[in-house]
């Protein structure tokens, strides 16, 4: 948008300056979508899904062993969020609230999946989006090692090392003290190192 420079004299050639268009931050846009969704606008909620689904998937994938289960947990999480939307305060970050709901949905699904055999899981394709360069043997070993971890330890490991969350954020998300998240991470790393040792190149 162009507008005359008020500092320019009347005798001088009119000078125009470029003013930046008003920028709506993601946070403001998110708040607007939340308010509209709380008013019953389904399109606004769809926009919130678009904004947050990738992080929500990552949170669910941290807890659950398969891509399909992670997707189920994302769907359940968004459904719970939709039902509870009236209780959400728009001045709070929607993402943090949503991730707590999704992690709860994922942990709930993990409890129901506990009966599954770790070996059976290792044979499934845990992610159809894997790196083609990743060897089948290593992939199976990673699946097996992740499957042997308790779901909370696995969640802490992936949320911290893969997704980059801080211990305090992980603690809030999973409903555990920050110190517990630190200790879970330590134990998870140790278990993974031990499980993957045969597949790692030895120092010559």
């Amino acid at each position, binding site marked *: 948008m162009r507008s005359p420079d008020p500092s320019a004299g009347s005798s001088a050639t009119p000078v125009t300056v470029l003013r930046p268009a008003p920028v709506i931050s993601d946070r403001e846009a998110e708040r607007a979508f939340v308010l509209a969704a709380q008013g*019953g606008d*389904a399109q606004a*909620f*769809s926009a919130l*899904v*678009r904004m947050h*689904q*990738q992080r929500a*998937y*990552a949170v669910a*994938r*941290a807890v659950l062993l398969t891509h399909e289960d992670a*997707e189920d947990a*994302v*769907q359940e999480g*968004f*459904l719970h969020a*939709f*039902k509870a*939307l*009236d209780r959400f305060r728009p001045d709070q970050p929607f993402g943090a609230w949503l991730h707590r709901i999704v992690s709860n949905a994922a942990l709930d699904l993990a409890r129901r999946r506990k009966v599954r055999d770790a070996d059976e899981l290792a044979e499934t394709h*845990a*992610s*159809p*989006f*894997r*790196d083609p*360069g*990743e060897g089948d043997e*290593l*992939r199976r070993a*990673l*699946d097996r090692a992740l499957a042997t971890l308790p779901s909370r330890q696995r969640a802490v*490991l*992936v949320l911290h*090392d*893969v997704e980059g969350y801080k211990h305090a954020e992980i603690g809030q998300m999973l409903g555990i003290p920050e110190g517990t998240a*630190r*200790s879970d*991470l*330590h134990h998870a*790393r*140790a278990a*993974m*190192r031990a499980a*993957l040792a045969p597949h*790692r190149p030895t120092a010559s």
Partner: protein
Amino acid sequence: MRYDDDRDPALTLQLRAHLRPPADPAYWDGLEARVMAHITAEGGRALRERDGTAWWEPMVEWRRALVAAAVAALVIGAAGAWRASHVEPELAYDVVVESPPAAYGAPQRPAASRGDLLGDLLGY
């Protein structure tokens, strides 16, 4: 013990490669559509409840009036039953006690003279 000291960059790289989320935008468009379809299917009831269009919503709004009417009907019914079992019999007794039948109150025949009475007794 410092737990942060046991970072393992090789493990982190392996996990990141292994758990990489889908990169295809079409996948995320599809997931968004599936999420909204799930909400429409499963959350339809929640939406109706939230919008107050459930069939029982008007009844909730009239709940107080309905409860008050039910209580009033109960009180009136109870009062009627109590009256029927206690007050009305007592009134009936009062009528009986306070209003002796005509047979007891009224002389069956006019007062007789002493001579007539003696005649009755002697049989002539």
